[in-house]
Every structure is written in C-alpha cells, then in structure tokens.
C-alpha cells in the first residue's frame, strides 16, 4: 500500500508532457469564419500541439525547471513558447506567435500590382461613363462608375441642356453614347480580379528575470513584431472636377520593437521599481501610389492607359516612444499603505514629408514632432477600523504636444493648386500669399488631466457592505503655439458620485446593487476653435475695408463661423464679403476649400456637458448543491443636455441570466442568455445658404408650389430660398439601435458516464439587429421644371428621410471535443466545429457594379458562410 501511495504521489506531482498530432478538414473556405483561427481555406490542415516539461522534481534541492510549448503548428495561428529557470534566481523565456487576420475574400480591383505600393490600371482601361447631358450638350457621356453596369449606363436620361427645345425631356441614348458606355464596360469589367485581403502579425518575445538576492532583481523583455499583408483603404482623387474614390489594396509592412527593463526592490514592508519602456515603430511602406481610374477622355471611350493621373497617399510614419517610470508601495502598518507611480515619456516622429505639385508650400521637410507624456499617481489605502476601509487617490496625466506649428498650403486630393486672390503677398499679409486652395496650420493637441478620488467601504454587518465614493476630474486641453485656442473645451470639470451595496443575504444568495452619477461641465465651449486650423482668418483679405479680418468681424458681431442666423437679410460691406448671402464664413476668407465651422449648438460629445447615470446589479443564487443561477442587469445613460446638434443621448442596457447544473460529479451543464440594447440619438441640420433667388429656370418661383414638406409652412420657392438656413424642415434626427441576443450552452464531462471519454461541447448563437430611424429630410428641385412648364408645376420636392434597412448578423457556432483515453498515456482526440454566419448589410450595396457614381466598385459581399470542421488527432502523454 505504501508503494502504491508513493506511486500515486509521484504521478500527481510529476509534470505531464504531451504531444498531439493529427489532421483536420475544413469543408468550405470562408475568410470571416477563419478570421482569427487559421481555418480560412477549404481542405486539410495539420494539427500539432506539444507541451514538454522537465527539470528537477518537486522534492529535489534544485529549483531548475523548463517547459516548451507549441500550439496550432499546422495553422497560420501557430505559437511557440518556452521557459527555463531556477525559481527565485533566474528565468529565461522566449516566444513566437503568429496571428493571421482575414479581412475579405470578396474584394475585387482592376488595379494591378496589388501587394506592392504602386498600383496601375490595366492596359486598355477606359473611363466608365453613363449616357447623359450637360447644360450645353444633351448628348454626352458623363463620368460615372455606374456605367460599368450597362443597363444603368445606357438608361434614358433627362435633357439638362437649357437651350434645347426638349429641355427636361427624357432622352434615349444615341448609338454613339451606348457604344462608349458599352466599350468601357466590356473592357473594364473583366479587369476586376479577386484579391484576398489579409494581414499577418508575427511576434517574438525574449524575456529574462534575475534576482541578485531576495530583495534585488532585474528583469527585461524584448518583443519585436512584424506585420505584413494587405487591407482595404479608401482613397480620394479630384482630377476630374469632382471627388472620386478608389478602395485600394493598401500594403502593410511594419516593424515594432518593444523593450521593457526593470530594476526591482522587494522589502518586507515595501516594493520599489524603476523601469524603462521603449516602443519603436517603423513602416517599410513609404507611400501608396495608384492611377486614377477617372482621368482621360470620356466621350469616345478612347483608351486611357498611360494618361491616367497618378495619386499618392502617405503611409503611417514611424515613431518612437521612450518612457521611464518609477513606482513604489510602502506599508506604514498592516492597515495603511501608500502607493506612488510616476512616469515621463518622450514620443517623437520625424519621417520626411511627401511633397509634390499639389503642396506648393511645405515650410519644413519633416515634422520633428515631440510629445512629452507625464503621469503621476498616488494612492493611500487604510483600514482605521475593522469595518471601515478608506482609499484616497490622485492622478495626473499630461500629454504635452510640443510640436512646432507651421502653415502648409496644398490642394485637395491631387487637384491642381490655384492661388487665392484674396490673399496676395504684401505688407498686410504677414503669412504670405496663398498659393493653393488650402492654407492650414497644424494643431498640436495637448491634454492635461487632474483627478482626485476618495472611497469608503463600510461593513454594515459581517454579510453586508456599503460603499460610497466621490471623484473629481478636470481636463485642460490646448494647442502648443497655436494662434488661437484649438480646443472646443479648454476646460472640463466632472464630478462623480457612486454608491454600492453588497450583501450575502443567505448562505445561498448574494446580491450587488450600484449606482453612479456623473456630471461633466464645460464652462466655456468654444465654437470658434476650428479657426486654429485656418490662420488666414486673422489676415485681412485684399478686398476687406479698414483692415478687417474674418476673425475681427466675427468677434465684433459675436458670431461663429456659421454666421448670422436671424433670417435672410442682404448684407453689405465687410459682412457681405465674409458672410455672403447670410451664409457661413466664406471658405476663401480663411484659406480653406471646405466649410469647416460647425452649426451653433453642435457639441462634440467627448468634451460636451454630460450627465451620466450607471446602474449595476447582480445576483448569485446557489439553489442546491448542484444547481446555481447568476443574473445581472446593467444600465448606462449619457445625456448631452447642451447639444442642440450632435450626439444627444446614448442608452445602453444589458441583461444576463445563467444557470449551471452539475448533472453528475464529472458532468456539468451551463446555459446562458444575454440581451444587449444600445441606442444613440443624434441631431443635425442640412441647411444651405439663404438666397434671394426668385426663380427656378422656366418659371417664377414666387408662384410655384412646394411639395412634401409639412413643418415649415412655406408655399413658394422664394420663401424656401430666403429661409434655407432656418428652415425647420431641415432638422434631422437619427436613432441608431443595436439589439443583440446571445445564448449559449456548455456541456463538460470528465470521464463522462463512467467511460474513458472526456467531453466538452459549446453552442453559441448570436443574433444582432441594427436599425437606424431617421427623421427630417431635404429639398430637391424638380428636374422636370423647365421652359414651358405649366404654372402649377411643383418647383421642389421635400424628400423625407426614411429608416435604413435593418442590418442583421446571425452567427452560430457548435464546438464538440471528445477525448477518449485509449490507455493511461494515449488518447484519441476528436473535434467537430460548425460555424455559420448570415449577414445582411445595406452598406455593401454601394460597393457593387452600378451603384455609386464616384466610387470604383470593390464588389465586396456581406459575410455569409457555413463551415464544418472535422479533426482527429492522437495524444501521447508522458
């Protein structure tokens, strides 16, 4: 008996090594099914795992032990790790981990060279067009990617040539137009080829730990990481007078090197550490370059190869982050502890800028960017009485961006630069002439956080606890060296109060209820913060009188960039120059191609006034020795009371219930159901400029009716035009609602049913539904209004917004694993997995042939798959 007991002890204490090998078969290739698990391709794959352990036994005087472990060796998700060490003296670790992420197996592009950073159109590429008309020619081919679908490209179209006798009439395309559309489609469509998009991250890890004595030690880690592959990326070009977009295969080829070094002091009453963390990121792709599919002749379908304009996109620059930190904890007594942490880091970036003819003014060749990050925390924890615990803490974080500010001039998206005649060189223009459509100053954002908190936890009894806490957080935001404050909210203050009750109501039942209320306030929300981007707002344009600048006019009148809002009024003098037709601050007056100011009342939610309510509840009930239940309900509400536009509210609630049943000693069953509901509501307004235009071509607007609106009472076009900026019909509101139901069953059996079978089974189903209700709308002029139209013809229709189709995603996964012990050291492992996803998403409509005019189709499809995976492997333990 003694020998048997010793043998059992030896078995129980001896580390078990194992090797597993076999094969698996995947029934169908599906990138999404194999997104992170290496099972993306149809066919067979090897199964390989091992776990080898060795070294001194537990009762040996040597503490030396080692372990080498490998997993998923036959898949693209393989990993390998190992360690050897004499515990308490030294340890050395290494690791290798590969992660393939599949992004799309339905992406298509006509661009050649995918996988490299230079993409070219195929020889013979023709600019896709549709049959159409312009104001001067009613028989032309108009640039449009929709023409790749010939039924769209050769459809009847409206005659928009104003001097045509059949203006507004429907025209049937001519043979020449059809030929041009068809030629492009016939040439271009076959050029679209599948290119599977995936990226692979490969990580290595080397680490050591050495103790000089029980108190002093050093440790370190070096983690080089390489990432490569291709992912989709939107790009924009503006060579044709309008914006066109191409989803290009963006090459990823980067290296990141992370290093940790630590010196530790471990004492009986305290601990201290000095540490260094470094992270160096390098991008091996200097830029992405592609030929613009929309440049070249369009009317005749002439071959465009060689004439396409080349566009260039910058790649993410390399950067470095070096941080030194110190931390320490000291126990003043068994019931009082002080912990202090502090760090300072230097984050830099200095990759050379890409400059070309679209960037006529680039004052420096690289950013020489510098951000200093400082952090400091102190926390004091005490238990003055057995029933009372107190915690007080303070935290300081500072992202101090010290990057210099310069003014860069450029045109958008590859367009040829055009000088701004409002800002010419001269004594009144200290910033110099504006040579391109945009003259922008970079903004070096900084943020400083001060946070203090106190918490008390009181034991009402041996089974009940009450906790209360208060936290104050102040954030300061600004920009180094900016000519005007860049921060929407230079200061935000937030106060939070929390109460929580925990109780063990009986031996079988525990509950927890918590409530948190937070109020964040921004004393002075700055609606003119956008001006930091456009320093010419503070330069007097050539046509201004009295040296006025856009900024001075705004300040004098108390306006934002949106301009006066008291109904239409003809403006004169400087006001008319800066806010023509009572519109927003004219873009050219601040040297920017786009209107970048926001609606008055727009509050950016991350800095806006906010009231937050959080409720947390949970209960655990051990009904019997075999049966237990767990449930919880969480609720969050954020309300942005001051936001007239922008995010208004978010509401989230989730409920979970779970039951666990021990069917037998070695067989258990658990079932759960979770429901989550997320709602976000936003408001906006589609305003356009007020206008005194009284006519729509062909008829007097004052006598022509409007149709479809019901909220503004306007009956004539002129009324609408005069009040476009204040039309209440243009207010819109969206409610985005995500509802997700999830349920799962898990069965676990060890030597189930008194057999040699270990069995685990999981089934999880998730049904997600995303809805978006939209109210409001916009006006559209009647394109059939023209010369000779009847006086009663409707001038403009109000197009009501309507709810988006439901986006749905259903996923099912069944996973069964059985392990049958053939002998004490050998087992057969059988695995079966079924993965299924069905998804419907309107977003993909815009990626197909014949959908969007200015976006080259990528023909990506919503994820739908049904995959069976079978695996069988042999396991040897020793």
């Amino acid at each position, binding site marked *: 008996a003694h020998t048997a*007991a010793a043998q059992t002890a030896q*078995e129980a204490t001896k580390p078990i090594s194992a090797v597993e090998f076999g094969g698996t078969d995947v029934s169908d290739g599906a990138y999404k099914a194999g997104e992170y698990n290496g099972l993306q391709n149809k066919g067979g794959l090897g199964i390989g*795992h091992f776990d080898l352990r060795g070294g*001194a036994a*537990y009762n040996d*005087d*040597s503490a030396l032990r080692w372990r080498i472990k490998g997993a998923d060796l036959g898949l693209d998700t393989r990993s390998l790790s190992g360690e050897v060490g004499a515990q*308490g003296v030294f340890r050395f670790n290494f690791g290798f981990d590969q992660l393939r992420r599949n992004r799309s197996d339905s992406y298509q592009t006509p661009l050649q060279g995918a996988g490299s950073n230079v993409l070219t159109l195929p020889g013979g590429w023709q600019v896709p067009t549709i049959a159409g008309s312009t104001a001067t020619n009613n028989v032309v081919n108009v640039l449009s990617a*929709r023409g790749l679908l010939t039924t*769209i*490209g050769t459809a*009847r179209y*409206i005659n928009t040539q104003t001097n045509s006798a059949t203006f507004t009439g429907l025209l049937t395309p001519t043979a020449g137009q059809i030929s041009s559309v068809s030629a492009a489609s016939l040439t271009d469509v076959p050029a679209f080829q599948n290119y599977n998009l995936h990226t692979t991250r490969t990580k290595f890890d080397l680490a050591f730990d050495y103790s000089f004595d029980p108190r002093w030690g050093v440790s370190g880690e070096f983690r080089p990481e390489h990432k490569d592959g291709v992912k989709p990326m939107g*790009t924009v070009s503006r060579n044709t007078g309008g914006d066109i*977009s191409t989803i290009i295969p963006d090459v990823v080829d980067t290296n990141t090197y992370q290093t940790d070094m630590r010196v530790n002091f*471990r004492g009986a009453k305290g601990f201290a550490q000095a540490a260094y963390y470094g*992270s160096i990121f390098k991008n091996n792709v200097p830029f992405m370059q592609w030929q613009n599919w929309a440049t070249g002749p369009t009317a005749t379908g002439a071959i465009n190869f060689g004439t396409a304009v080349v566009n260039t996109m*910058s790649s993410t*620059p390399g950067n470095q*982050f070096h941080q030194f930190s110190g931390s*320490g*904890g000291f126990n003043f007594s068994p019931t009082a502890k002080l912990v202090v*942490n502090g760090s300072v880091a230097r984050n830099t*970036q200095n990759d050379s800028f*890409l400059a070309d003819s679209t960037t006529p003014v680039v004052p420096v060749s690289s*950013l020489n*960017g510098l951000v200093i990050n400082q*952090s400091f925390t102190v*926390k004091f924890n005490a238990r003055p009485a057995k029933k009372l615990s107190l*915690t007080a803490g303070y935290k300081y974080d500072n992202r101090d961006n010290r990057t210099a500010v310069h003014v860069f001039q450029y045109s958008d*998206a590859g367009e040829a630069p055009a000088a701004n005649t409002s800002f010419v060189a001269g004594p009144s223009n200290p910033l110099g002439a504006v040579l391109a459509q945009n003259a922008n100053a*970079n903004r070096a954002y900084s943020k400083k956080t001060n946070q203090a908190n106190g918490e008390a936890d009181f034991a009402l009894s041996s089974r009940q606890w009450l*906790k209360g806490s208060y936290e104050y957080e102040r954030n300061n*935001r600004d920009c180094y060296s900016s000519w005007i404050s860049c921060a*929407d909210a230079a200061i935000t203050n937030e106060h939070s109060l929390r109460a*929580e009750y925990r109780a063990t109501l009986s031996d079988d039942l525990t509950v*927890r209820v918590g409530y948190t209320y937070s109020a964040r306030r921004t004393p002075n929300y700055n609606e003119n913060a956008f001006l930091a981007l456009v320093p010419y707002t503070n330069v007097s344009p050539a046509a201004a009188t009295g040296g006025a600048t856009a900024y001075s006019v705004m300040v004098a009148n108390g306006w934002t960039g949106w301009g006066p809002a008291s109904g239409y009024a003809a403006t004169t003098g400087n006001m008319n120059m800066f806010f023509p037709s009572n519109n927003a601050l004219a873009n050219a007056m601040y040297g920017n191609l*786009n209107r*970048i100011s*926001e609606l008055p009342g727009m509050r950016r939610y991350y800095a806006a006034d906010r009231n937050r309510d959080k409720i947390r509840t949970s209960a655990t009930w051990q009904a019997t020795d075999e049966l237990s239940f767990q449930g919880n309900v969480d609720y969050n509400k954020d309300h942005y009371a001051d936001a007239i536009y922008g*995010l208004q509210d978010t509401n989230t609630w989730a409920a979970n219930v779970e039951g666990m049943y021990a069917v037998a000693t070695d067989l258990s069953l658990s079932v759960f159901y979770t429901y989550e509901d997320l709602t*976000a509501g*936003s408001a906006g*307004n589609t*305003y356009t400029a007020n206008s005194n235009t009284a006519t729509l071509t062909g008829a007097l607007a004052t006598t022509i009716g409007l149709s479809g609106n019901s909220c503004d009472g306007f009956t004539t076009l002129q009324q609408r035009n005069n009040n476009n900026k204040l039309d209440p019909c243009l207010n*819109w509101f969206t409610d985005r609602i995500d509802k*997700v139901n*999830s349920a799962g069953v898990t069965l676990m059996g060890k030597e189930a049913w008194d057999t040699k079978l270990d069995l685990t089974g999981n089934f999880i189903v*998730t049904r997600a539904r995303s809805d978006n209700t*939209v109210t409001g709308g*916009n006006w559209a002029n009647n*394109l059939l209004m023209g010369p000779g139209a009847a006086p009663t013809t409707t001038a403009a229709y109000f197009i009501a*917004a*309507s709810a988006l189709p439901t*986006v749905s*995603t259903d*996923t099912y996964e069944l*996973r069964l694993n059985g392990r049958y012990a053939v002998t004490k050291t050998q087992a057969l492992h059988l695995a079966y997995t079924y993965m299924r996803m069905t998804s419907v998403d309107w977003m*993909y409509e815009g990626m197909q042939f014949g959908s*969007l005019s200015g976006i080259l189709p990528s023909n990506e499809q919503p994820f739908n798959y049904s995959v069976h995976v079978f695996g069988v492997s042999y396991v040897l333990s020793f």
Partner: protein
Amino acid sequence: AQQVGTAKALLDKDFVCTTCHDASSPKKIFSIYQTRHGNRADARAPGCMDCHGPSDKHIKDPGTGTDVVFTAKSKHLSAADDRNASCLKCHDSKVLPRTNWMGSQHQARGVACSDCHNIHVPDQKVMSKATQAEVCFTCHKAQRVQTRRISSHPLAVTGLGTTAKMSCSDCHNPHGATGPTLLVKNTVNETCSTCHAEKRGPFLWEHAPVVDSCVNCHTPHGSANAPLLKTRVPWLCQDCHSGDHGNQVNSAANLLGGNVTTVNGQQQLGAAAPRAQTGARACLNCHVLVHGSNHPAGAKFQR
C-alpha cells in the same frame, strides 16, 4: 532563494497536512508540487500552512475548516479579505508584488485572488491565453458576448477551440493599475498603442478625439459596427461634424432606389447616384486617415 535542504524542510512541514490530504485525495492537492508554489527548492515557496493557516482546530477536528478556506463552494469559505491576506503575505511586496491591488476595482468589490486563481493545478485557466477569458467572463458577462460580434478583437476561442490570440490581460491588469478600467498603461491610448503603435503619432495633422482617447469612437470588446466602432459611420462622424457635407441627412432615401435618386418617381437612375457618404465606407471612402495624417496635404485626412 535556493538552499540545500530547503525542499526536505518544507516537505516536512507539509507532512502535517499531506498525511491526510495525500495524493489519493479527490481534490487536486498534490498537483501543487508541479507549480511554482509547490517548487520546494525555492525557500520562498509557501507551505500548506503559510496559506491555510496553522489550523490547529482543523488538525484536531477535520470536520472544521482550516483557518483560511479557499474552496468556493465550501460552507467554511473565508472572507475575501482573509483569503487575500494569505496571498498578500508574499505578493504585496516580496514576490511578484501586486502593489496596486489595495484600492483597486477588484479589491474594492470583494474579489479574492482565489476567485480567479487555483494555485493547486499546474495549468491555471486564468494563466493561459486560450482559457483566461473564460475566467474573466464568469463575472464580465457583457464582454463575453461582445467578443462574439461581427467585429471584435481575437478574444473568443473559435474554430478548433485550441487558441485565443489575445487575452484580457493584454490590456487589463486585474491586480490594480494606474490606468483607467485597470488598463496596463497609464492611459487608454498608451495601452492601445502597445499593439497599434502605428496610430500613436504624433502626426502632422492630428484628430482631436483620437489623441483624446481611442474609446471616444471605439468599443474594444466587440461591436456590431466594424471596425469596433461605437456606432456606424457616417453618423459616428456626424456626432461631431456638421460643417460642409457633414451636415447632410443620410437615410434610406440616399440608397440605391431611394427617394432621392428617384424624385417623385421621375428622375432616372442613370442620372443620379446614391449619396457617397451613405454608401460603401461612407466618410471613410475619402477621409480614411482619421487617426492622423503626416502628408502636407492631409489636413482633411485624405492623404
């Protein structure tokens, strides 16, 4: 920490307990000797009574519990503070110090070390990437299902079920931290940058909410809106942008066949396309470098 004779001395101390709780015990008590805690050559490694207490009463009357009972379902289960005190005797400052534990979210909510750790088994679930999330999801139920959304980090075990490629502890330090929500670094952005270093910058053109916090736009555990977005674009962008074309209403009227493309049923499909901001990648069709651009023409995140 290695000393000749250490192993024997420690094992002799354990013998008080292992006399009864021997290897034949249905509980996996002896397997602790496969673990770091059971490495008897390390003088720092605890003996049974270092964690469970001298337990004089238990020795005399096995029907009573030890001084400190860790078994979750035991009627003698000790209070969380008492269980933690056993661990902190070493782990407060001397061995793998958990300096920030006191006052941390888990400590303050009555979580005990043994709620997550089972130090008697050689492969603790919480210490393995493939199984750690299971342990965390015991309490964090919402996160469990979020990892099953169409857009997620690789936290869920899928496929053959052998590996998860991320663990909760890649981002969170459950033992207490200086960052918010127990993040491993001082801030959200510092934490995210440990993997997403390409988004760290600084960039020539910074996007204010990005440098403020990644979670202004992203929800890291999983989302119905790829890529891990709180809500779908273009509305996510319109929550902050109402200028220029950002002020337009986007609805089903802008989709293929929607009312905008067929005004009063009279405007032909060939003549008007759905709004680009509503289709495909919406705002990201053009403004793709929203995390920051380093191109002199990239102020609008287009280059």
